[in-house]
């Protein structure tokens, strides 16, 4: 598997309204990820038969919530509204939607990154 260049997680569209402050929407790596501790590195891994994202490594601002990340992945994978997406730390625990990734990085990050597993499901009807 070729090494993926790190991508910066873009701002959600204004309709998403998750209450976070303005962030860079830099396409490349103008701002080194993890530097000045504003962004953290996240490695996304698919679980089960969930589609694998072409870009797995992302630089994400610390204040991004789990729900914000879920919305982003769902859009990226073009999931339909009836499909639910779950994100796990430690491959087993789903943090609350309002949990900030920065906090998760502090608790579960290692080797300079936070590994998150994601899984899609038709759960709840």
């Amino acid at each position, binding site marked *: 598997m070729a090494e993926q260049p790190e991508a910066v997680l873009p701002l959600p569209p204004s309709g998403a309204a998750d209450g976070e402050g303005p962030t860079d929407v830099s396409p490349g790596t103008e701002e080194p990820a993890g530097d000045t501790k504003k962004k953290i590195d996240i490695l996304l891994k698919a*679980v*089960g*038969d*969930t589609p694998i994202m072409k870009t797995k490594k992302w630089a994400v601002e610390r204040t991004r919530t789990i*729900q914000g990340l*879920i*919305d982003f992945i769902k859009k990226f994978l073009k999931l339909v*509204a*009836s499909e*639910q997406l*779950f994100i*796990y*730390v*430690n*491959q*087993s*625990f*789903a*943090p*609350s*939607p*309002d*949990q900030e990734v920065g*906090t*998760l990085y502090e*608790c*579960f990050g290692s080797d300079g990154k936070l590994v998150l*597993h994601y*899984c899609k*499901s*038709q*759960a*709840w*009807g």
Partner: protein
Amino acid sequence: MEEDEFLGEKTFQHYCAEFIKHSQQIGDGWEWRTSKDCSDGYMCKIHFQIKNGTVVSYPGTSTHVQTCLPMEEALELPLDDSEVTEATAATEVIKYEYHVLYSCSYQVPVLYFRASFLDGRPFSLKDIWEGVHECYKTRLQQGPWDTITQQEHPILGQPFFVLHPCKTNEFMTPVLKNSRKINRNVNYITSWLSIVGPVVGLNLPLSYARAASQNE
């Protein structure tokens, strides 16, 4: 065809015990209750929420459970009933009760819950829906009757709301399979509750995530 990951009742009880152990360590307020006449049991937690968003957790009141240290914030916050009745809607206190029971028919845990104001007025299904986290609302609105229903608590016989268990295996199986692949022992109850809890306002502290992989 992949096998579903079913949970036996003894295993359910074991995972609950492990879960409660950690809950006691961090003062999260979960306790085990058994029914008077049978060997059934369930996990239970009560927490009070002030409508402006602050959450206060209190340990259960059963005496047969060793009382755990309440969180410091809980000690400082008086819950004088007389103060509450004079409060405006913005500062009303709501009592949430969560029960984790085992379903023999589905062979999975089930989350029963109810909420009420301190004066005893119970939450209606409409009130419950209003309390569901934004991110789940779209999904639930597509079929609320399939997801949250009102049922009689199998042990207490009182009306509770229930998060329907029919899809539990569907979202638990990939997680469990994945962990098995890497030989990590997972507390089924911890994983399951971390997924379903937030839908109805129950958020597990992150320390459960670490405890779950250390206990076994």
